[in-house]
């Protein structure tokens, strides 16, 4: 895995869904709901940052692990 400990998009989505579920629950205080909102927005920003929106060119790898542009 390239990211090491950093959460994957999938994990972030799951976390956001968890936050939403809690926010949409009945027994949540306003303070908690603000905190959760902040947290959710932060995670959404992380998700967006992960989709870096730069088109990639195909790379070629050799047995030694060296990368090169596809010719």
């Amino acid at each position: 895995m390239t990211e090491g400990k950093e959460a994957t998009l999938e994990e972030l989505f799951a976390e956001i869904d968890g936050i939403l579920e809690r926010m949409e629950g009945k027994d949540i205080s306003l303070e908690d709901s603000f905190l959760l909102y902040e947290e959710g927005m932060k995670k959404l920003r992380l998700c967006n940052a992960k989709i870096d929106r730069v088109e990639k060119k195909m790379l070629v790898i050799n047995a030694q692990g060296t990368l090169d542009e596809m010719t």
Partner: protein
Amino acid sequence: MKPQAYSVSQINAYVKAMFAQDFMLKRVCVKGEVSNCKYHSSGHIYFTVKDEKAAIAAVMFAGSRGGLSFPMREGDKVLVSGSIEVYERDGRYQLYAKEIEKDGEGSLYLKYEALKRALLEMGMFAEEYKKPIPGYIQTLGVVTAPTGAAVQDIRTIAKRRNPYVQLILYPAQVQGEGAAESIVNGIRALDAHGVDAIIVGRGGGSIEDLWAFNEEIVARAVFECETPVISAVGHETDTTIVDFVADLRAPTPSAAAELAVCDVSELLDELNLRLLRLRQSAAWKKEAARSHLEQLAKLLALHAPFHRLNEKRQRIVDAQERLTVQMERKIADGRYRIGLLAGRLDGVSPAKKLSQGFVFVTDAKQERVGSVSNVQEGDLLRLHLKDGVIDAAVQGVTVYAEEGQKG
């Protein structure tokens, strides 16, 4: 002398009968390679069995398809069991297949079966070893030939679904001598480099062409790979050992790309949806809190001291009003009674009496004199008349006899 002439139908019928009498042609097994294989929509399979020197037309009718347990294709080495009969209309004979088997002791097919069984027994196909393919990959490794259709298909589909995914190709040799080693190196290089998933595959071909994907070293490399592997070998109908070991089997390289690369527009939609929900639920919560607050404020105002003071004030005003009304009623009542009494009083008014000539007498202490017994000669009296007073001194006092006494 010329021999007798027969019609074509007669001759063909005769030859057909000759074949039919032959014990060996009734049940025969022919060994050869399949070519010109056509699957007809009716379910019949038309093909040719050939060796280096000769060929024979063959057909397997739909009703006999149970005798074929593998997807037969061009170049397959087969043993065909059936009968050889004449097709009268064309004057041709052909092999009517009842059963078709892969040919030969030590054939690739048998090797495949043996390895499959061995790896299955070792548990290498077990579900518990299958790693899930991440839902949103950012880098995708591809082990396939750099020039084939497979890499183009993967590239096209990956780009269409998500152009931001980084594809890294290991240009492998996928068939012939050294193919298995090349594929193994590709898997290891990509696993070591670090990608989110790896597609291992190639386009369709004969069992020989696909053979590298049935080699044990390739199967082991896939099994040991830390990164999830999607196999994509040949067509839907080709199943290689690698397909069993892989974490996910895709029927074709295109399908593998579909499975590996998520649709970025869908992903962005999902993100937006969550953003909306997040905002909405925060706004809703805020609104709920606000309305709760308003409700509390109302309640508080209702119980506030000044509100109670107002209430008391109101009660005072009410009481005052009631008091006034009561008072006015009493006063009116009193007035009425005064009027009545005044009328009556008027009837007995001393003033009236005075105007008739009576006199009202007071003594020096301003007290009424009602009897002569209180008066002595020389006392000063005041006589009240209708239009004034007379001060007089008593010159004499006469007491009437008893019967003349009046109060």
